[in-house]
């Protein structure tokens, strides 16, 4: 009997972070612009030392303008989606739950489309509008998903599905009213796009803000991880053991939805990651949520960075959307996992 210790969790996370680091470095190296590892390293060093003038303009453009923001965004989005997926799987007591099942991505898509119709050329409007759409959907589904004043998993699931369908219908209607160029933008956004420029020119500040929101939401969910372990063996049993089930459900719902809204607003709806990464991490490290939440976060980051790297190098110079890559890789993994469960 070896109970879970913080040391073990930290050790595993450090190991996974190492994998993430390697993947990020590989991703930093790959791209259409010819730049050697040596040049990348020297660019990074000069940047750290504050000597921007010594770096050729184009190196700076490529490393800090194109590749690093993309990798950073990929890490953020992957971590958010996987953590949210793990949370929803516990909240809804359904291994097939993914972050989009409660309609958050449809709300974000609606926000994005509305922003394209109303303010097509404002940079970053699409992201802010998408987040507003996501937040509204979160609130609406919360109020619909209650029974007797408390969140009830089956009712929540139904409310989410209804919201998603309704929003999709509105989206379809709006799409017919949208002209050519906006249609293209929204199509790419829906497929998952890590290259959208941020609302502010201060990319570092923007990324910092996003990571801050991620830490807060994921941290809030982590504080309920012990409770989630118990809730997964049965809600009544958890109540009898002293878990405040309603409070836990509320926290997990808000945290997971905020994470999903964050990811979708920033990069569209990238599929499969939120569903599969938690399962893979369960297979590797067990179902204890105190271990699962951090490992799923890092695992999701690794998955997205890998997928994005493949997406931009496999058919160079054309770029595939990240969502296409995760779907291509995700479907076989999903089938494999399903077969394992059948056995």
């Amino acid at each position, binding site marked *: 009997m070896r109970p879970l210790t913080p040391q073990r969790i930290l050790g595993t996370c450090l190991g996974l972070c190492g994998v993430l680091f390697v993947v990020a470095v590989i991703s930093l190296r790959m791209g259409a612009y010819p730049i050697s590892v040596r040049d990348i390293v020297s660019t990074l060093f000069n940047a750290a030392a504050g000597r921007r003038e010594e770096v050729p*303009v184009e190196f700076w453009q490529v490393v800090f303008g194109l590749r690093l923001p993309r990798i950073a965004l990929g890490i953020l989005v992957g971590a958010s989606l996987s953590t949210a997926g793990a949370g929803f799987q516990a909240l809804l007591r359904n291994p097939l739950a993914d972050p989009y099942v409660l309609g958050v991505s449809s709300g974000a898509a609606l926000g994005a489309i509305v922003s394209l119709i109303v303010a097509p*050329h404002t940079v970053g409007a699409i992201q802010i509008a998408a987040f507003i759409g996501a937040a509204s959907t979160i609130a609406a589904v919360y109020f619909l998903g209650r029974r007797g004043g408390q969140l009830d998993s089956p009712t929540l699931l139904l409310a989410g599905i209804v919201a998603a369908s309704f929003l999709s219908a509105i989206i379809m209607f709006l799409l017919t009213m949208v002209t*050519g*160029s906006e249609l293209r933008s929204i199509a790419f956004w829906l497929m998952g796009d890590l290259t959208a420029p941020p609302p502010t020119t201060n990319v570092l*500040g923007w990324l910092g803000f996003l990571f*801050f929101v991620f830490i807060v939401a994921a941290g809030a969910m982590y504080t309920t991880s012990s409770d989630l372990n118990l809730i997964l063996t049965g809600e009544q049993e958890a109540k009898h053991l002293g878990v405040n089930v309603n409070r836990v459900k509320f926290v997990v719902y808000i945290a997971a939805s905020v994470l999903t809204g964050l990811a979708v607003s920033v990069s569209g709806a990238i599929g499969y990651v939120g569903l599969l990464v938690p399962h893979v991490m369960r297979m590797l490290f067990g179902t204890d949520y105190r271990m699962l939440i951090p490992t799923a976060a890092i695992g999701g980051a690794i998955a997205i960075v890998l997928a994005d790297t493949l997406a931009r190098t496999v058919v160079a*110079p054309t*770029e595939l*959307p990240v969502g296409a890559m995760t779907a291509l890789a995700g479907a076989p993994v999903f089938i494999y996992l399903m077969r394992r469960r059948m056995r």
Partner: protein
Amino acid sequence: MEADTLRERECGEVPRSIREAFLFGAFTRAARQIVFVILILAFCLANYAGAAPAQAPTYKRGMKFVTDETGRRMAIPFSVQHVVTLAPDLTETVYALGLADKLVGDTSFCDTPPAAKLKPHVGSPQTPNLEAIVAMHPDLVLATTSINRAETADALLRLGIPVYTSAPHTVRGMLDSIARMADLMGANEQGTALVAQLQSRLDAVHARIAELPLVHVLFVVWEDPLITIGQNTFIADALRWAGAESVFVANQNWPQVSMEEVVRLQPDYILFTANHSESTKDHELNRLRTQPAWKALRAIQMGRVVRVDDEITKPSPGLVGAIEQIAHELHPEMFSSDARGENFEHRTGMRMDVLADTRQKRECDFCGL
């Protein structure tokens, strides 16, 4: 009692050590209380810090400030040596201006003129590879709202690469765009000459058909679902120059319409784009004669179908040729005089036969320039 002590601890007493606080939740509880304040502060800070633009790296050559057709403002060097185009019509324009040697990269869709296929590609107009563009060290990138995404232009501008986006809505607007782009690339004379020539061709067509009533046509963008053009597109404007008008009046750019409505409106002519397909006009006509709703159209029955060159969809110099083609096909009587016809044919190498496949014209359209 032990339980009571534990319970007391639960109620938010000061933790004994940071480790205890971090691991056991008091930290997150406190963080929750001040999280909104910090969020707001961080957001304000990020925005404030971003107020100073961290943009354009310094170029050694002289630069001028330019506002493009979407309202974006950027610095373009006086002397432009390397140009990258992100749309087929822009590539055509660059070739038409005689600036082919300044073109260092175009998209994989650029096939007109054929020499454009041999240039290095940056990807598709929708998803060009930004790094590939950077690798070509462009002084100027040309984009257009008719096929490129705004995000691409924004991203390139963020990197400090000037992107001139044209937004053509009318034929005259397109000519102005060409003139402006020529000016930016330092080819003022070629630009003026080209624009003048295109304008005179348009005037010639206009002169012949100005008095005639507009022919009602259905311009088919896509067959199934049936999509036609709205009145704000430049295709609609081009059609007006050619003496035609779409039977549908819509504010949307690409409205989807029902066949029943078409049958009710009974356009005089049906216009298809060649769409890079190999089938001839006869083949298409026979195929349509067998389709249920199409055969109810008088235009189909009378064989009044025009297979328009793809150039009609692109705001490029070749558009004028397409306008001429349509004008000829819709108002053959105005162009039937032998002398005039010969002149015209000599100039552009077009054949007057209404049933002809118009694709062969493409190569020679530039001969006359």
